[in-house]
């Protein structure tokens, strides 16, 4: 079976007549069936995607081409697809079918994408290892002893394993970029407000963004192009014009900011640190400028993120109550016990932990000390980031502190797990776009990712910067 890294290659073969969409889809279906232990898909829309492929083949025969013709896509289980179950990998929504499609799904389908199935993830997108799914953990297809990362673990694993060409994930604190790094993929968290959240199960509403996983920067850019832009259903979505993301400009020299406090390498895997330094040297040699900046607030990013995101989550998850839809405990006898028992039985441990944290930080008497202060720190972090990005084109960091870790390594210690997000949360706190691209391989055989964070709504530039990293 031929492996494609770019949609352009697929489309070339389709044009040449050496490939049909149906064959491609059947190849993916066979690959999924061959490695069930990966557990990336919660559901494969087999008959449906074959029908979509046949329709595409017929369209191609008529000479009709769309931007995403030939692209087979998996979607994270927190993205609505009309008439399909979406559960955010939670028992509390098990079997819940959406009455409508997310704006991103509609836009991708309208450009010819074929949706092959829904992808496993950490429950309600809360987690960094995909160990929190109510439907079992996802294995890293590169080495199944390792986690694929989270929360979009299924989305990353599926593309890395060749189960589909690309996938959608969501990123609230790093949930696209971290698994992209752990599975050797390109993953983008767009600027907050670049892509509609309509039809996305909310975790932290002021942080959540949908984004693509793919093997190439080009395909990530193309998918972002199709999904981005204003949406009447999401008033937090920007009305700013999207512009052109493809083709990607590659000829410029850039200024990269690196954060002094990180260069010491404290807490970093030594091999990752060395690879990062080497990449920095390589960029300099290629004529780019490296600017060392200080970012003293950085240690506050994780606590701030966990205060604000859990606060929003505690409210966003109130609707899963057992009353109107989703899981209802059979042991409930009245309204109060319907709430308590349905939520106790329906939510997993990590989700309950975060609801408790979020409820606490919003409580009367604690609001100012936690949520109120968190908002102020958030503003400081954004101001500082924008200040750095006035002098430079992007902030360059490793995506993670090391490679993917092994199952169970961090699952007993929530704090250790939360520290996984150290480099990624800044982009969510500030609303800035950030991309992770694979840049090295560790001696343990696992990939390493490097992250670029750019100016708000400068996605086009982010893709160009990412290309410069790969050059």
């Amino acid at each position, binding site marked *: 079976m031929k492996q494609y890294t770019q949609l352009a290659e697929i489309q070339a073969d389709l044009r040449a007549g050496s490939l049909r969409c149906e064959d491609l889809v059947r190849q993916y279906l066979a690959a999924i069936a061959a490695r069930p232990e990966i557990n990336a898909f919660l559901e494969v829309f087999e008959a449906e995607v074959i029908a979509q492929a046949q329709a595409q083949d017929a369209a191609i025969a008529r000479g009709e081409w769309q931007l995403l013709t030939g692209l087979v896509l998996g979607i994270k289980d*927190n*993205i*609505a697809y009309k008439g399909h179950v*979406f559960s*955010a990998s939670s028992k509390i*929504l098990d079997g*819940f079918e*959406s*009455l*409508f499609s*997310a704006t991103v799904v509609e836009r991708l389908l309208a450009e010819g994408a074929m949706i092959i199935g829904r992808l496993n993830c950490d429950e309600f997108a809360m987690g960094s290892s995909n160990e929190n799914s109510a439907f079992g953990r996802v294995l890293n297809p590169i080495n199944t002893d390792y986690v694929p990362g989270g929360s979009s673990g299924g989305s990353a694993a599926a593309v890395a394993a060749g189960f589909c060409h690309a996938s959608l994930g969501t990123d609230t604190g790093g949930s696209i970029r971290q698994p992209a790094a752990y599975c050797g993929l390109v993953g983008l968290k767009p600027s907050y407000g670049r892509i509609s*959240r*309509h*039809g*996305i*199960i*909310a975790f*932290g*509403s*002021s942080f959540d963004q949908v984004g693509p996983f793919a093997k190439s920067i080009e395909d990530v850019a193309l998918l972002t192009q199709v999904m981005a832009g204003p949406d*009447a*259903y*999401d*008033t*937090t979505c920007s009305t700013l014009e999207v512009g052109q993301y493809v083709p990607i400009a590659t000829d410029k020299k850039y200024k990269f900011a690196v954060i002094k406090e990180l260069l010491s390498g404290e807490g970093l895997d030594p091999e990752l640190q060395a690879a990062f330094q080497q990449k920095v040297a390589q960029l300099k040699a290629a004529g780019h400028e490296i600017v060392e900046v200080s970012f003293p607030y950085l240690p506050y990013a994780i606590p701030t993120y966990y205060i604000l995101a859990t*606060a*929003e989550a*505690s*409210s966003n*998850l*109130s*609707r*899963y*109550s057992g*009353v*109107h*839809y989703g899981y209802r405990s059979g042991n409930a006898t009245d*309204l109060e016990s319907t*709430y308590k028992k349905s939520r106790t039985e329906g939510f997993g441990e990590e989700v309950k932990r975060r609801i408790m944290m979020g*409820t606490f930080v*919003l*409580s*009367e008497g604690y*609001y100012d000390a936690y*949520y109120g202060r968190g908002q102020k720190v958030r503003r400081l972090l954004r101001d500082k980031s924008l200040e750095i990005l006035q002098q430079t084109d992007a902030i360059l960091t490793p995506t993670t502190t090391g490679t993917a870790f092994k199952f169970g390594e961090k699952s007993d210690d929530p704090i250790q797990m939360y520290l996984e997000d150290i480099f990624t949360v800044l982009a969510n706190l500030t609303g800035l776009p950030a991309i992770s691209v694979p840049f090295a391989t560790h001696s343990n055989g696992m990939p390493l990712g490097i992250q670029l964070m750019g100016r708000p709504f400068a996605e086009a530039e982010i893709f160009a910067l990412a290309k410069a990293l790969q050059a």
Partner: protein
Amino acid sequence: MESTIYDQYELVVGLEVHAQLNTQSKAFSSDSAAYGAAPNTQVSPISLGHPGTLPKLNERALEFGVKLGLAMNCEIRRWNEFARKNYFYADLPKGYQITQHTTPICYNGWVDVRNDDGSKRRIGITRIHMEEDAGKSMHDQDAFDSLIDLNRCGVPLLEIVSEPDMRTPREAYLYLTEVRQLVRYLDICDGNMEEGSLRCDANISVRKKGATEFGVKVEVKNMNSIRNVQRAIEHEFKRQIDMLQKGETIYSETRSFDAVNGTTFALRSKEQANDYRYFPEPDLQPVVVELAYIEEVRNHMPLLPSQLIERFTNSYGLNEYDALVLTDNREVALYFNELTSLTTNYKQAANWVMGPVKSWINAEAQSMDAFPLSSKQIAALIALIDEGVVSNSVATQKLFPAMLENPAASPMDLAKQMNLVQERNVDELRMHVEAVLAAWPDKVAEYKSGKKGVLGLFMGDVMKRTQGKADPKMTSQLLNEILSS
């Protein structure tokens, strides 16, 4: 009158009024906001709180908020944020209500109420904020289950919070009447308390007269008429004073009004109250209200009762009582206002609207909108009277009822058809007068000897001979002329 222990205390009342807005669609979705549809038919995934749905502000709700704020002399907040009020209840599918917490759209306003002795009282408006309604829980419709109707879920509300400025139950009654009149004039809410489109909670406390500190306030809910708000306050005033007199402590609590026996009973103490965990609604951008927008709303404001009263008294020379009666109901006031552009006989116009027109509305139990005659026709009727074509009594007793039967016909044509036009031909009238006087020589003699009272007899006879069509003014002139010759 004997003074009682109650006279030593002062009542302090502030009201929280929820006005359900009569927008086409809901506050944050395009679902219909109409009242009275079959349960759970006006819902979409947004009203149902389905995962992945997001709110979008209905701009009409914002406009209504600004309108009401301007009518209540408020400052309008330029930078508006929405907040989430979190609590679990079966008729609140999202688990939170979208409302405004720290940035209400309107603040620092006032309305004047007119006490029965004519004195004005100014009641402060603390704030008016936008929010969405919850669904309706019905606990008495089914023997075993509570039923939930989510049609109301998401319908826009304005919550109007007054200062604790009311000192008598009557003032609360008058304030609420004023609020209801304003929302009806602005056409933003139908003001119907029985159906719950206007809801009122009262914060009630008492203190010794002369005290500067407020007493502990008790919140009373579930009063479904303005009259019941007054009754609840009357009851609470006495209940709280009785408690204090017995040395008991009043706790801050929420009570419910029992309309059957006019008392209140405890629902829950404030200590048991929810912690709503308010925080800024992240799914909605803050709304910036531009000055130009406020001006545009201001320029499109309908005339308010206070403005109409001023116009009716100052420009049209009506007395204050008439002006109050005419402005009591918005449709009646607008009808009268229209009428004043078609006739300058304002007093006559006022009498027609306050008399026959209002009588018709009352007798038919109809609204002004259903009144069949246009203001043009009433103006034409007034003109006929003014020109002496028909007499006032004929107009009231015969022509007006005929017009109601036949709203399309012109009053003049009807008057002719029915032979109601006054006899104003002097020669013709003189003939009738002379014939009457000739028939009563002894009465003429009586008149000439000074018994002027017989004039009425002559007049009545002339009317009889002319079937009521004789112009009374002319007839009386002729009688005088002939008798004194």
